[in-house]
């Protein structure tokens, strides 16, 4: 198996792990970690496949991933602030599982 393929498939694996964690775990911090792992998986797919071009890899996906990392960091920071606020307001670290409020 070629290196790009190996890492791209690992990226798929990370995406699915992240998705599983996001759906299954209730604690919001775990969900945030799960989203980050899923994001890393997507980035891994993007960069791994860019290496198929031979000696010098395609720089465009690298730039996209750097943009993506900045966006991911921003989103994570926002999510963490929101989590702290939510936790302080409700005393809980998870969302109610029933979806319809009152």
């Amino acid at each position: 198996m070629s290196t790009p393929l190996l890492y791209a498939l690992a990226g798929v694996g990370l995406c699915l792990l992240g998705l599983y964690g996001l759906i299954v775990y209730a604690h919001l911090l775990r969900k945030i970690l799960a989203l980050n792992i899923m994001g890393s998986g997507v980035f891994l797919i993007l960069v791994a496949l860019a290496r198929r071009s031979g000696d010098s890899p395609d720089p465009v996906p690298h730039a996209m991933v750097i943009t993506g990392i900045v966006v991911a960091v921003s989103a994570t920071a926002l999510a963490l602030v929101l989590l702290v606020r939510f936790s302080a307001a409700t005393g809980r670290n998870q969302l109610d599982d029933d979806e319809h409020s009152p």
Partner: protein
Amino acid sequence: MIEASGTPLPWIVWVILLPLIGAMLCFLWPRQGKTLGLLTALATLLAVIALYFQLLDGGVIRYAVGGWGAPLGIALYADGLSMLMLLMSALVGVGVSLYALGYFKHSPDNPAGFWPLWLLMWTGLNGLFVAGDIFNLYVTLELLGLSAVALVALAASRDALGGAMRYLFVSLLGSLCYLIGVALLYHAYGTVDIALLGTLVERNPATHVALGLMVVAMLLKSALFPLHFWLPPAHASAPAPVSALLSALVVKASFYLLLRLWFDVFSTVSMDLGMVLGVLGAAAIVWGSVLALRQTRLKLLVAYSTVAQLGYLFLPFALLSPLAWQGGVYFVLSHALAKAAMFMAAGNILAFGGHDRIADLDRVAQRLPITMTAFCLAGVSLMGLPPSGGFIAKWLLLDAALSHDQWGWAVMMMIGGLLAAAYVFKVVGFAFTQADAPHDAQPVSPFMEWSALALAVCAILLGLNAHYPLELLAIGGPVTFVSPSP
């Protein structure tokens, strides 16, 4: 088609830059937030109108950012469809900005963040509507999603924080699914330019998987049944101007993106999914309406009504005729105006009585006549009664269904209309009567009342001037929008 060069002012750039600059100014001088925000809103409206005339004169606009052009650089692209979306956002945006002037004066919600966040959201919206590049769309999508989440959380109540949290997860999950699609398309075809992809895309596994993921991502973000679970808590608990923006514009942005992908990128690939989307849309109409009818809180009722109304947008995917697509796009416009007006009216009622329990609405109609008029006019459009915009939209959809003898869809639309009438009249009925527990009334700012009415009137006017939007839609629209489908 014109290659927009520098000499006539490139308004397509300014519709993105103006709100961004405004947002930075509002952040720098928070005390002048209102003035700066309103000025920016008006300036953006003017830029959108200028772009409209540019489009009328020269047809579809393609603008190469940095002068590179595809596939290396990023292209901006505006046709009739993008223009309608821009105009819709500008109209609703100015209305909501005026509304916010009054709203944040008395509300307990945190006003400091509203102006910069809303202007950044507008940047994301306009950027999304004129983007010609699927990766650039990802960035605008994130800008839009994160600002929407932050705006919901401004309300700072427990419900709002929970709703914002759920909304954030859904939004990020959707963006990541979309990004996987982008990765697959880029690595399959070596470009992220929409126009180029449209010519290159062929039937192969990568394309199909990308299509599937991107469609699911957009369905999630535009809350199509059964992926709607996040919408009511977020939309109902946000501050009223934010609810209006979310229901009117943000969900439409992902619907617009879906249309772009569907027609400009994946047009040559199978359209088998269309029937599925149509069925889900029909289910959304019934399910959303029934739940709306069962709500006891006004804002939740309006939010579930959004779930129902979004269902109509997906019927054209199954009807597959140009008439249906026109109806679908028309529905986007009329729902945006009507729903913004309705959420604003609901916000007025909430501010007036301090609560939004439908059963305890105490003679609101007599005491807030302007607001109640706005609510009723918006309701007329949602029900699809003439002469409203909603009527034209439903008429087009019905016409499309009946001309192909697809009675099932027509019946669904009728049922949806009746249910909409039921939940609107439920509110109106309680608004006229005296409640068991009469309550004190807080003053409601005239800005809030009149801006709600103005948007509601626009929703009605949309029905009287149907040919303008439809002609605009024809400019550079996808083939299926204007000529009969095979």
